[in-house]
């Protein structure tokens, strides 16, 4: 067990969760107090002693599921691990599970043996499982579905996502969801017909509210099934390739380390969630930095003057009061498809800490450019404003493909005068200009007039200046070009600005 724990800790560290030696010791000590056969208890025990931040929990959970997947009652794999895609043994076991699940559920679907089950029967079984919220049956359906649709091949070095996608595509859960809701609506309607309500009595149709609640209920069951399928795939992968190898390919990055440009929809939600506490923390930290720890230089004149009262001995040295000037920030962001989410996060972050700057002005462009500063005024939540940008800003000039040259030229003509030596200009974008003219003289002019010009590029450094990326041309005139792919990098940069 100790060895297993050490391996597990190593894996957590590899996934980016900082686990100290003390925490490792604590976990070992803690394990002595919980029953080993209780998998949930072990999971929470290790979690409580090893993981000290809620944003790391997802990564921890994944690692735990992989490491301890084969070691629990009821988690045994149905089927021959050497060849998970077929085999009589597997089908027998599943048929049994499905049968008993069906009997306990609706009394239907019990006939659904593994071997002869058609896709329609499986779909029906799935439907029944969801309708009855029957856990055992759901697990059985998940197994069956994975066996049938995922088409898993032993030894293939891919992550589970591909299999998951294939399984889900075949099950078509969205349609099942609609069918469930329709069914419920019909059921109420027919109930109405059979027993018409007493005159004046309440009618028993589904109100929109009830329908919504019903839909949510089914949705949560569908989510559960999805998770079940995911687990099943993972279990099979572990059996196939061993936990060490799998942990590496399934490792989930922490929210701070997710590559913003290539984030999945699910990851974007996680990012958005972690953005708010992040910006709040940053604001608190910067405010504190401004308040404390800035001692001005010795004010010689004042010290001498005050020393007169002590006979010329400078007992009480006086310091100049520090007056750090707050920078003025001008953000010019590309919000075309490829970098949109990155621009949104940056705008959100900059405005969330706008109290640290004397002024923040934001401009967004694709091939046209528009000022959006007013969207952020008087809004308590930057997220609202960011949402408005997507719908209201006028950023299309010709065809809606990024044209940095045109956008910059227009910016210079209309707002160039307002750039002062106190402004710091942030340009956001991948500088993929679709082979338009670069007009990099604008950046040069900006640099001459502004205090700093920074370029934040959400692409990995290796891709710069390849294809239609012309970041190098602009970089000549920027104080710094920063690679900014993750929230962590973004936070670091913005923190350094103020």
């Amino acid at each position, binding site marked *: 067990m100790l060895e297993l724990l050490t391996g597990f800790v190593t894996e957590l560290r590899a996934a980016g969760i*900082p686990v*100290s030696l*003390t*925490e490792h*010791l*604590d976990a070992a*000590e*803690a394990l002595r*107090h*919980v*029953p080993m056969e*209780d998998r*949930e*208890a072990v999971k*929470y*025990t290790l*979690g*409580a*002693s090893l*993981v*000290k*931040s*809620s944003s790391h*929990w997802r990564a921890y959970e994944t690692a735990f599921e992989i490491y301890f997947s084969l070691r629990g009652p009821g988690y045994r794999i149905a089927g021959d691990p050497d060849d998970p895609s077929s085999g009589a043994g597997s089908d027998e076991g599943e048929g049994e599970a499905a049968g008993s699940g069906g009997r306990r559920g609706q009394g239907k679907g019990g006939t659904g043996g593994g071997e002869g089950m058609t896709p329609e029967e499986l779909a029906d079984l799935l439907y029944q499982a969801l309708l009855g919220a029957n856990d055992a049956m759901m697990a059985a359906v998940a197994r069956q579905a994975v066996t049938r649709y995922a088409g898993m091949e032993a030894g293939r070095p891919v992550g589970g996502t591909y299999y998951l996608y294939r399984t889900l595509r075949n099950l078509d859960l969205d349609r099942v969801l609609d069918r469930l809701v329709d069914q419920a609506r019909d059921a109420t309607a027919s109930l109405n017909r059979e027993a018409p309500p007493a005159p004046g009595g309440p009618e028993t149709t589904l*109100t*929109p*509210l009830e*329908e*919504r*609640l019903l839909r*949510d*209920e089914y949705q*949560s069951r569908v989510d559960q099934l999805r998770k079940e399928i995911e687990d099943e795939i993972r279990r099979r992968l572990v059996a196939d390739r061993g936990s060490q190898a799998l942990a590496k390919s399934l490792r989930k990055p922490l929210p701070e380390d997710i590559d913003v440009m290539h984030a999945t929809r699910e990851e974007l939600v996680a990012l958005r969630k972690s953005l708010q*506490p992040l910006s*709040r*923390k940053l604001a*608190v*930290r910067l405010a*504190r930095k401004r308040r404390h720890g800035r001692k001005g230089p010795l004010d010689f004149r004042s010290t001498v003057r005050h020393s007169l009262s002590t006979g010329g001995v400078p007992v009480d040295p006086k310091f100049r009061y520090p007056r750090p000037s707050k920078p003025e920030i001008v953000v010019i962001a590309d919000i075309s498809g490829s970098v949109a989410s990155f621009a949104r996060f940056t705008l959100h972050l900059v405005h969330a800490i706008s109290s640290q700057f004397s002024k923040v002005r934001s401009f967004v462009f694709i091939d046209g450019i528009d000022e959006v500063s007013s969207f952020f005024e008087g809004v*308590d*939540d930057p997220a*609202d404003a960011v949402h408005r940008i997507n719908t209201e800003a006028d950023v299309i000039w010709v065809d809606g493909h990024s044209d940095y040259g045109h956008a910059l030229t227009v910016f210079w003509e209309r707002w160039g005068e307002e750039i002062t030596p106190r402004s710091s200009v942030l340009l956001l974008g991948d500088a993929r200009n679709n082979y338009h003219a670069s007009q990099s003289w604008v950046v040069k002019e900006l640099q001459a007039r502004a205090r700093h010009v920074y370029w934040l590029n959400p692409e990995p450094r290796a891709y710069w200046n390849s294809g239609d990326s012309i970041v190098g041309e602009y970089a000549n005139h920027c104080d710094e070009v920063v690679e900014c792919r993750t929230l962590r990098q973004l936070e670091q940069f913005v923190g350094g600005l103020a």
Partner: protein
Amino acid sequence: MTGVVDPAGRVGPPPEVVTGFPVAGPPRFDSIAAVREGLAGVDYLADDGIAGVVFLADRLAKPVLVEGPAGTGKTELAKSVARMTGSRLIRLQCYEGLDESKALYEWNYKKQLLRIQADSGQAWDELEGDIFSEDFLLARPLLEAIRSAEPVVLLVDEVDRVELETEALLLEILSEYQVSIPELGTVRATQIPLVFLTSNNTRELSEALKRRCLYLHIDYPLLDRERAIIETRVPGISRSLADQVARIVRSIRTLDLKKDPSVSETLDWARTLVVLGVESIDAERAKDTLHILLKYRSDIDRAAKELAGVESPD
């Protein structure tokens, strides 16, 4: 009551050897299930994670750092554990500017002055030994928790509000269960208190603090647990209404709101509905009482619109 070691070593027992793990007293709980049942007995419905961490905190003699959204029962957990074990709850509410004299101890200097004036003829050595004795010590919550002879539960509430430097005050007490007073020596706990620290996550706590604690994240409860919580905490609510309330709240939490309704707000809402004599909620009623559940204008509008089913297919 307390093991006091004089700094000069003149009186008191020899210092004990401090081991890596603080020695836990006799265990308070038999098993995780026992914790959960005990908490249920004082109307706190814990899930496996919560009960497990409380159990471990006792066995390992380690403090628990509780994080989670506001209003999910973090403070309530500490109170319930105190009630369950029949201990006294000592609470330290943290705020910006909290310092040693408010959290740990303070010398009662007025009394010390009086003492000096009363005995002006005494030799200084004697007097000094006298005025820095326990009689002149004002115990603040942390020291009080350590010195208490009866079992206590120490709750350090909203620990994220203090400055990073002030956190250091807590470190000694959290890992060794002792307080060092320069003039007096080290006060060591006679019994290990159960310690809960809560945080709303407004800033990152220091590694040193986190390392000393077990970590517990309390999130919004799942449907079944929330329904059970409503039924236990709201007297006179019918089963169907509790179920409906829990479902509607879950539904609202799936919306992208500024502030999701917390458990305490859910309970307030359920109580309101009971007081109003509502038997089952329809969209109209929900809309009228939403302001109890949600505290932002835009959130209320949004939820009301969604619940009325504007975007439903029919």
